[in-house]
């Protein structure tokens, strides 16, 4: 039962689009979902609504677009003010949540991406960096959850969305590298949380199938290597 006023432009593989959809589910807001095909040319709608970055997700309320997943989640939290609130109410807790979400986007996600596109020789170093990040997130979870099931406490919160949306890709990397990133032995809190997160009512319908995502990951790798090789070929001809 979509609220005809709300639309999300995203892709099934995008963790960032996933954040937006989970947020809308948490607020019980219906929406129209429009799938953008990432392996083909960008749609008119995408280019028009996000001319600056040309990326998904884009949220539309009426015809007004909002871009950047974490900004969209803030926006959703501020428009639909019924419980549950996605960000905490205390300013210090909010700052702490924002810090960890920013960490995910500024450091953790790039590390994850580096593993995905890495060559044989880079992979070990890239994976080591990712695993350091996992350790930090395990500590952050223990601090923020205060013994409860989620980063947000009893309910899914801002940091849950920020980190949880990457879980499927983490599983893909575990598959590719045959290494465990999250495990009961090394990251018990995160391992338990990961199960709670992916099975949550607001999450499970948008959590990508890991095998399908792994196939897509291979296609992305191929696309990336091709582009990197082409760029290397052109730069070696200039001074």
């Amino acid at each position, binding site marked *: 039962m979509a609220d005809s006023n709300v639309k999300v432009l995203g892709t099934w593989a995008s963790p960032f689009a996933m954040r937006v959809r989970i947020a809308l589910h948490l607020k019980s807001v219906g929406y129209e979902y429009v799938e953008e095909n990432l392996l083909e040319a960008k749609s008119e709608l995408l280019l028009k609504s996000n001319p*600056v970055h040309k990326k998904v997700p884009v949220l539309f*309320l009426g015809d*007004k677009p*909002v*871009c*950047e997943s974490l*900004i*969209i989640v*803030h*926006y959703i939290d*501020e*428009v639909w003010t019924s419980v549950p609130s996605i960000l905490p109410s205390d*300013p*210090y807790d*909010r*700052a702490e949540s*924002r*810090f960890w979400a*920013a*960490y995910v986007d500024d450091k953790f996600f790039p590390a994850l991406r580096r593993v995905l596109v890495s060559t044989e020789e880079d992979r070990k170093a890239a994976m080591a960096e990712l695993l350091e990040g996992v350790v*930090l997130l395990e500590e952050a979870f223990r601090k923020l959850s205060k013994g409860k099931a989620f980063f947000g406490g009893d309910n899914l919160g801002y940091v849950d969305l920020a980190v949880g949306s990457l879980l499927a890709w983490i599983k893909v990397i575990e598959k590719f590298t045959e290494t465990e990133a999250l495990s009961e032995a090394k990251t018990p809190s995160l391992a338990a949380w990961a199960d709670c997160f992916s099975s949550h009512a607001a999450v499970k319908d948008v959590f990508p199938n890991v095998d399908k995502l792994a196939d897509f990951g291979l296609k992305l790798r191929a696309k990336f290597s091709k582009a990197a090789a082409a760029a290397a070929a052109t730069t070696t001809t*200039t001074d």
Partner: protein
Amino acid sequence: MEGEVVLLDFWPSMFGMRTRIALAEKQIKYEYREEDLRNKSALLLQMNPVHKKIPVLIHNGKPICESLIQVQYIDEVWNDRAPLLPPNPYQRATARFWADFVDKKIYDLGGKLWRTKGEEQEAAKKELIECLKLLEGQLGDNPYFGGKDFGFLDVALVPFYCWFYTYEKFGRFSIEAECPKLIAWAKRCMQKESVAKSLADQEKIYDFVLHLKKALGIE
């Protein structure tokens, strides 16, 4: 009632300047502590173990890291005066979007202007001008990015104004020639005490960068 407020900072940092401006806008008394980034204090490392970077805002002993997060924190705690984010959610999202754009683009592009030469420098200059024009477009006919009032995006961008002189000298161009409205906006902001007192002197920044280049062995 304010509690104890400490700012760990480094005088040329545009990011630190944002927090200084926000604190000044709210007229909050705080202790400013200068960090030597080649010899980071135990306090800095303790308060920001993840990134080990300034600025760090410490309120009643608890750290808040990342400049835009600090500005929002200050706005939310001292919410009885000089609001920085507007009340309307869509306007807030717009302000956050462009502040995020400043973070994603301006610092790195500006840095390339003094760190690189030749084609790389030219490409950075071209892109920086495009980004500044995009930002300038957001002003419209308003005196500030916040509309009638100085706000969040103004705070996020104006510290770069004291670095423009350095960018212009290394890049051999005039930002005012490319973006006259933006410079008019920056000068308008500099009329505010909170901004004038928080930004560093542009010539001192230039000297600092000259010394930094030598120290880093960049020609």
